[in-house]
């Protein structure tokens, strides 16, 4: 019996050996036939031929034998499943607890994996998406220090032989006019063959053709699917309509299908010839006019990316050698990064951390269920022993128990899948903040296979722990009164220790990230965020004719915004008005510029250090409450005609004027060649989780700014103020769209949302782990109390006080918890050290720095988490302990 079972098990796991044995067995038979034939007088050759003829085809026989192995396997499996279902139905409470626990663990993992799958694993939903690359070039690490590309450089990289279709993209905001309200549209300015290279065909109308991109061609637009639905009610007749945009009429020629948009979602697309900046001859001629993102398709016959990389390396070396003044002397490199990787840069590490965290929850779930199963096994001791006595072998019993576990695991997996399906929308919203691929997240075949695989694996793990932990000894188990053996008690204790230590590690992660979130939330940004309302206002590009000279345009634009500011200030209830190019805590980045002090030319071959360039109106600092440290703020007399002035922040002052007073010194740049420093402002946090960097501020009147942001301090309620601002904008200029009305407090909160979601997820996982562990501890202690009822009865009969019994039970639980905490502390220290590189990654490109202002070895967090765990464990022990203490000695002894 044992032998045949092992055949069946080996037929699953050790197929190879079985095959070899079958082969030997059959070969022996044939050889014997041959010998017999030779003995009859045949020649060896003929004897072998005859033997094979008589024997028949070896392969056919083998197939038949294999069929026997399989059918028998399924037969037994069906039997086991029927038996398992019956046995679980007899104990629905147990089944429910296991399935729910399992579902929580699987749900967490499936949810996170569906994001990983949709965002990281799935191929891009474009034709041969794996052949699409993004180009970068710059000094050192080209991806981090990307210079972007000028039109001239685009042409240079088109020389790379392994690339076909090198196309450009850049994002602009333009006003669409000629409808009821002026609309500010996010616009993708692209090469004519952009859609062809990506492999996208229009849903209505057409995409761009080469003729659209010719200089002076009539301007055309392709609408994105989303914008078309939102703004035109999905009306196909929009194709052919003409709208005013910038300085010319634009005809809609097509609508895109609902495909994900890379590198970001825009409302409309236009060919580069239609963009007034991109098509300016000065920009096209300027090798430094770098504003473009470059996409390329690797030729289908080029198998490896390294070939493409080698080709663009060559281009980079050539342009560096040919135009020495335009490129850093050393370390200038180019890189071709698969589009797929480029789109998720900064999100990848976060996702793996979350998946790892979910994996920890699953481990705890495993341990917890294994413990429940062990306890149940002890209760089923009689049943198992009877079956063993009736001839079931250990292997057969183990297989039965494993089958039951698998039934539970798969049921839990299905429920978990349902949980994750329900949370899908939330996850998409979460991922949207990190990557353009968020809308590709779905529960597809890969996710289903993952869930099934993980469920089965989990079932095998938690099922085999009790199956192997118990020795199936028939005789002692059959004897009345014998309870759980020493060995299974030890396994149960070990599982509790494992759960506690894993939970501790998870809770430490949750604690550290939560502490970072609180630190960041509590950061004093250096300005006030109360009662401030913010919005954008975007002047149309053709407001002042391009025929005007540069200085004239700047003068007129300055006047335009000054007038707008005055109108805002005139609204009753408005206290202060500050304008600029952007404002703190906003996702909109500042401009950047090289900083060179007058009389201190750069050593040849070096680049000017880059600093942020921000634009401000005279009252900008006052409105935000950003203190002036020295000198003066801008004044209305810092007009276009007046000398150009600049204000620096403290970091810039320290960095570029060490031990020197910056006021009165001059920087190169600006329309007149120099900017005089007139003031120093205090540092503020432009992002709550980033230290302040060096900043320059220039006066709005001295800078040509199309897109402005405004911060208004007023006594009006937000909705009333918004209405007033809109009216003022309309009165000021019919074609001035105003948008993004938010209080600064909302902006601040929005900026922290991604971090908050991550912390919430890790926290939820931690909480889940805590609850499961607490239930596990309570279950094991309750079980152990149950087993020792008689012992407690005897103790009390002999005079032990109830409190003594209580303490005895609680001590048992606490010993396990303490060991778990000790192991968990070690684990957490190692883990944070290992993850340190990921979590502390300081490059902004890497996305969210999860731990800010927090040490990985944070005593308060460790002590706090340990305290919480101990309190919860105490509570979990207390209930069964109280039951133990309330045992009536007489009843307990009589039960014997």
């Amino acid at each position: 019996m044992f032998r045949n079972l092992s055949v069946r098990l080996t037929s699953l796991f050790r197929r190879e050996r079985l095959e070899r044995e079958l082969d030997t067995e059959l070969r022996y038979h044939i050889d014997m036939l041959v010998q017999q034939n030779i003995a009859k007088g045949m020649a060896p050759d003929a004897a072998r031929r005859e033997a094979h003829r008589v024997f028949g085809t070896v392969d056919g026989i083998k197939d038949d034998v294999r069929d026997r192995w399989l059918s028998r396997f399924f037969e037994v499996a069906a039997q086991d499943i029927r038996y398992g279902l019956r046995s679980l139905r007899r104990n629905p409470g147990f089944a429910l607890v296991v399935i729910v626990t399992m579902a929580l663990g699987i749900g967490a993992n499936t949810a996170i994996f569906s994001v990983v799958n949709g965002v990281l694993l799935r191929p891009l939903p474009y034709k041969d998406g794996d052949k699409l690359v993004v180009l970068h070039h710059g000094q050192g690490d080209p991806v981090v220090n990307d210079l972007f590309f000028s039109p001239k450089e685009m042409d240079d990289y088109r020389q790379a032989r392994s690339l076909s279709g090198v196309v450009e993209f850049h994002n602009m905001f333009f006003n669409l006019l000629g409808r009821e309200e002026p609309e500010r549209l996010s616009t993708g300015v692209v090469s004519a063959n952009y859609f062809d290279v990506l492999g996208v065909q229009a849903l209505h109308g057409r995409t761009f053709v080469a003729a659209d991109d010719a200089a002076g061609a009539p301007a055309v637009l392709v609408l994105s699917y989303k914008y078309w639905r939102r703004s035109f009610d999905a009306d196909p007749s929009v194709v052919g309509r003409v709208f005013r945009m910038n300085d010319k009429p634009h005809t809609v020629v097509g609508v895109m299908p609902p495909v994900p948009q890379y590198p970001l979602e825009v409302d409309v697309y236009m060919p580069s010839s239609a963009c007034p900046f991109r098509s300016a001859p000065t920009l096209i001629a300027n090798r430094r006019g770098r504003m473009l993102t470059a996409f390329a398709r690797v030729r289908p016959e080029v198998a490896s990316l390294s070939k493409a990389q080698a080709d663009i390396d060559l281009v980079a070396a050539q342009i560096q050698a040919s135009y020495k003044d335009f490129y850093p002397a050393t370390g200038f490199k180019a890189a071709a990064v698969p589009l797929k990787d480029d789109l998720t840069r900064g999100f990848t590490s976060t996702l793996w951390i979350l998946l790892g965290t979910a994996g920890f929850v699953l481990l705890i779930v495993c341990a917890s269920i294994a413990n429940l199963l062990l306890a149940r096994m002890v209760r089923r001791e009689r049943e198992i022993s009877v079956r063993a006595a009736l001839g079931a072998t250990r292997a057969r019993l183990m297989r039965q128990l494993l089958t039951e576990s698998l039934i539970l695991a798969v049921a839990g997996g299905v429920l978990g899948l349902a949980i994750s399906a329900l949370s899908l929308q939330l996850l998409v919203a979460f991922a949207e903040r990190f990557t353009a691929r968020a809308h590709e997240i779905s529960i597809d075949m890969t996710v289903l296979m993952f869930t099934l695989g993980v469920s089965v694996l989990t079932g095998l793990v938690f099922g085999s722990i009790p199956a192997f932990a118990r020795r199936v000894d028939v005789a002692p188990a059959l004897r009345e009164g014998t309870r759980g053996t020493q060995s299974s008690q030890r396994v149960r204790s070990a599982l509790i220790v494992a759960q506690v230590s894993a939970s501790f590690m998870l809770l430490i992660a949750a604690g550290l990230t939560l502490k970072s979130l609180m630190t960041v939330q509590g950061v004093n940004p250096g300005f006030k965020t109360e009662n401030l309302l913010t919005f954008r206002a975007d002047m149309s590009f053709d407001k002042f004719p391009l025929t005007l000279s540069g200085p004239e345009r700047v003068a007129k634009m300055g006047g335009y915004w000054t007038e707008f500011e005055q109108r805002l200030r005139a609204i009753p209830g408005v206290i202060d008005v500050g304008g600029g190019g952007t404002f703190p805590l906003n996702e909109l980045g500042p401009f950047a510029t090289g900083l060179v002090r007058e009389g201190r030319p750069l050593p040849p071959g070096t680049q000017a250090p880059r600093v942020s360039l921000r634009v401000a109106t005279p009252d900008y600092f006052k409105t935000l409450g950003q203190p002036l440290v020295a000198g003066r703020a801008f004044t209305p007399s810092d007009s276009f005609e007046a000398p150009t002035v600049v204000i620096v922040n403290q970091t810039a002052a320290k960095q570029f004027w060490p031990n020197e007073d910056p006021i009165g010194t001059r920087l190169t740049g600006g329309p007149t060649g120099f900017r005089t420093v007139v003031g120093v402002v205090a540092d503020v946090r432009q992002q709550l989780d980033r230290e302040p960097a060096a900043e320059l501020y220039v006066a709005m009147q001295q800078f040509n700014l199309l897109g402005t942001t405004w911060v208004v301090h007023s006594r009006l309620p937000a909705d009333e103020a918004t209405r007033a601002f809109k009216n003022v904008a309309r009165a000021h200029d019919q074609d001035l769209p105003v948008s993004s009305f938010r209080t600064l407090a909302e902006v601040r909160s929005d900026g922290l949302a991604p971090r908050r979601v991550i912390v919430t997820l890790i926290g939820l996982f931690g909480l889940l782990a805590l609850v499961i562990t607490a239930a596990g501890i309570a279950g094991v202690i309750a079980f152990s109390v149950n087993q020792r009822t008689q012992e407690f009865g005897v103790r009390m009969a002999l005079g032990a006080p109830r409190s003594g019994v209580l303490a005895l039970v609680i001590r048992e639980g606490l010993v396990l918890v303490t060991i778990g905490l000790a192991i968990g502390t070690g684990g957490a220290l190692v883990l944070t050290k290992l993850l340190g590189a990921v979590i502390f990654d300081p490059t902004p490109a890497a996305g969210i720095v999860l731990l800010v202002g927090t040490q990985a070895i944070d005593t308060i967090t460790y002590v706090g988490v340990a305290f919480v765990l101990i309190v919860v464990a105490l509570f979990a022990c207390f209930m069964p302990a109280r039951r133990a203490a309330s045992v009536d000695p007489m009843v307990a002894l009589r039960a014997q």
Partner: protein
Amino acid sequence: MAPKSDLLQGTLDLLILRTLSNEAMHGWGISLRIQELSKDVLQVNQGSLYPALHRLEQQGLISAEWGSSENNRQAKFYQLTRDGRKQLAEETKNWERLSTAVARVLAGL
């Protein structure tokens, strides 16, 4: 739970079990012995012998182990298990009942 066996299969199973009732044998030996005992009336088709042996092994009626044969080669020796012996007794009884019944029917015609 045993699979429904047609007459032929059942017969071969019975012959195998009977052949193994005295001693452990390998596949070759079993086929020789059946041939010999049936005075060459029954030729065992190897194509059914090995699947049958493996099925019986899976059902736990026979067990197998590797040993060395008369000519000192590795061979798989099959032997009856306790269940197999029971099965043999039962099958033999069935067979006798069946053949008596068939004989009666034939005689009655």
